[in-house]
């Protein structure tokens, strides 16, 4: 059940109305949301539910046991059990075949023709997201940064809350469990703002991400061997804005949906292409993942507290694992390593800048450089093999003449870029002015018209890019 589907158009109002009917009965509301979340998740494949339920029971039980113990060794053993179980599931479902393939290739390379067994299990939707979510719970509990959750219902709801279940934002236990423990009031103004946010996300997804994909990105990347150089370059620029609109659109819908239910989810994007360096980019792009990696991986590895070499190692390890989190493929691994390198250079440049007088570079230039460095990463992210990467580079360097892209599609790309660079406050204020200031029937009419517009503009109901992770 995609957010941009007819199913969700029915599902959400029904859940909201039932949620409203249960006002004042928090337990009832939790049960309702839990049932709705499992229903939502099972709409992809009912079998996936057993996996998320297993993960929930394991971490709930380990959390209770950890809270009941003061013995440091026992607590550590329980944490290791949680890490092993969750990362083990992730390894089996997401990475097993990748490592089996890699092992097979390595063995073939040394002259051994060995067939490494593979599995045919489907990758459960959103497994990377909810695994990181449950891990944040057991790790924070181990660090004694949060209280144990004694209600299985609330814990299960934290793990499976449908608005952000399959593609984030990754919500930490410390952010969400306290919200579940206090009664939520849903006001009309909250619902209006939530609906406005949902439509903002839908517009990003359907009118920007999907259209850029259909008009510039997919034609260029489907035709790497013969596409004109300009089409290949345009396709890459368009992909930068497609992936942003797609993923931030999803986050907008998730945040808006949660708001309609009385919950607050963390912001996940803050106009990332305005970053002046790659370090800043990672505080603006997929914020919930980058902060998770920082707090649960980079800092525990030692962060920047050790030598320069150690810090570089920590950065590279974090980013490579962050790349692998997106998918079990060489291009994601390379993408992570590429960003690891960029961060290492960025740190080095900052250190040198501290020793010498800073060069007088314009903000614009810094942003342009940073954007193009990130763009290089998106090329690694978009291609499906190293062969495709080579085709793209060859296609651009051969300076193939012509351009198949329609001028209107290029205009769409320009609009997407302009919207991204529009001050956030301006868009937020306009959205608030609309949701708070306009009469409800007018808002309803505008949303009804938008639903129709989105139906017309939808080429096919395409899934969000981050569902695959």
């Amino acid at each position, binding site marked *: 059940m995609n957010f941009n589907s*007819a199913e969700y158009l029915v599902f959400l109002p029904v859940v909201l109305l039932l949620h409203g009917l249960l006002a004042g009965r928090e337990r009832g509301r939790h049960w309702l949301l839990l049932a709705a979340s499992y229903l939502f998740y099972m709409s992809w494949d009912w079998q996936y539910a057993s996996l998320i339920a297993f993960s929930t029971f394991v971490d709930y039980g380990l959390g209770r046991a950890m809270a009941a113990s003061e013995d440091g060794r026992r607590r550590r053993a329980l944490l290791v059990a949680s890490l092993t179980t969750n990362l083990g599931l992730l390894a089996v479902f997401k990475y097993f075949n990748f490592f089996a393939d890699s092992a097979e290739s390595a063995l073939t390379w040394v002259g051994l023709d060995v067939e490494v067994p593979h599995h045919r299990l489907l990758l459960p939707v959103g497994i990377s997201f909810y695994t990181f979510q449950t891990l944040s719970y057991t790790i924070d509990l181990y660090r004694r940064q949060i209280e144990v959750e004694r209600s299985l219902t609330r814990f299960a709801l934290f793990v499976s809350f449908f608005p952000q279940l399959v593609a984030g934002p990754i919500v930490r236990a410390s952010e969400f469990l306290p919200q579940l423990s206090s009664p939520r009031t849903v006001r009309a103004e909250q619902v209006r703002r939530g609906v406005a946010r949902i439509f903002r996300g839908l517009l990003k997804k359907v009118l920007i991400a999907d259209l850029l994909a259909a008009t510039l990105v997919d034609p260029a990347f*489907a035709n790497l061997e013969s596409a004109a150089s300009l089409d290949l370059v345009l396709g890459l620029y368009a992909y930068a804005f497609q992936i942003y609109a797609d993923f931030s659109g999803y986050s907008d819908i998730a945040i808006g949906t949660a708001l309609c239910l009385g919950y607050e989810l963390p912001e996940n994007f803050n106009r990332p292409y305005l970053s002046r360096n790659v370090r800043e980019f990672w505080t603006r792009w997929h914020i919930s993942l980058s902060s998770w990696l920082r707090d649960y991986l980079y800092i525990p590895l030692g962060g920047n507290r050790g030598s320069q070499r150690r810090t570089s190692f920590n950065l590279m390890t974090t980013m490579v694992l962050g790349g692998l989190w997106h998918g079990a493929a060489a291009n994601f691994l390379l993408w992570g390593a590429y960003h690891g390198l960029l961060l290492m250079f960025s740190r080095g440049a900052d250190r040198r800048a501290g020793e010498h007088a800073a060069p007088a570079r314009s903000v614009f230039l810094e942003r342009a450089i940073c954007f193009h460095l990130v763009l290089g990463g998106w090329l690694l992210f978009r291609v499906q093999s190293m062969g495709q990467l080579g085709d793209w580079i060859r296609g651009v360097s051969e300076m193939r003449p012509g351009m198949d892209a329609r001028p209107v599609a290029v205009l769409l790309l320009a609009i997407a870029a302009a919207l991204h660079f529009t001050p956030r406050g301006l868009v937020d204020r306009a959205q608030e002015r609309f949701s708070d200031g306009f009469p409800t029937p007018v808002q309803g009419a505008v949303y*009804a018209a938008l639903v129709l517009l989105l139906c017309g503009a939808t080429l096919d109901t395409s899934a969000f890019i981050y569902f695959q992770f």
Partner: protein
Amino acid sequence: MLARYAVILWTLGLLAAGEFALELRASARGFRTLLFGAPVLAAPASDGEFGPSSRFPFRSRIAPRERRDGVTRIWIASASYAEHVRMPVESIWPVLLQDELKARGLAVEVLNASQAGWEMHRSVRTLRELGEAWAPDLVLVYQMSNDLDRIASALVGRAVDPEADLDAIPEPPAPPSDLDPTEVARQTTAYELMRSKFGPLVGDLRPQCDGREPGINAAAAARIEARFRGVIACGRELGATPMLVSFATAYPDPEQPLPPEFAAGLKRANSLLSSEGWRRWVRLGDECMRGVAEAEGVPVLEVAEVIDGRAEHFVDQYHFTAEGHRLVATQLADELEPRLRARAEAGR
């Protein structure tokens, strides 16, 4: 409590009210709608005379399932060009063909197994499902544009599934549940309207194939030929004689400008080929069809000869007006008459 969700209720209420109003209008104009059902224009002239019905799944004059001696059964494997639900059933060419041949003293029954959107694959599946029970003597294949659309989406669009085996006969999809929201949404008039208004605009944003790329054309030709071969083989498996019918369009010349409403209609169906490209592919399809017909020893009935390029007989690029249907029926009758008489003389 409801006041809290007023904005959602208003949105849904206005959508429902809008859909109701659009359906009323569409129904009055003769379209099938979700709430009001079958179009008025498509209703049979008199009860029980025409299918489709539960016992006669064809849009033509009802005939008994049991074969009658001396009667030749003609199966029409086609799509919207022969189903044409917006045209009164007694005015579509399969029905007129039967009337014309009867008027010429030939005993025939036409089984119009055509539905909007069907490709040759779908025609083959229907032949396999129903052919044995209805035992046709001749199978007339009048197909082209839907196959081109599908082939274009694979070869030009490529985004879908470049490895898909397009030449395999697809399994019938599971029947959608009445409660499937996507299915219901797709049947709403608002959805149809928006798709038809915005679809061409969105399609215009894509780079389009002009039908000049030899590699793609060769791949398309191979697929078109495979499809014609498939339907011929299926007809023969049933013991019927397959015959191919040349495909006619309003503006066949790729260099000729297309009226805007015709161009928009084409774009709605196929946003990957330019209007020039689409017409080049129709020519390509015609060449493929003739090549297959020659190789397989199958006759080509020349409909295009009499109506191709006569735009006044088309409501869009490939659907006929009432007069167009009449011309097609007459031409087919002219083409079939000597063959049917020869069959009768041969005692078949």
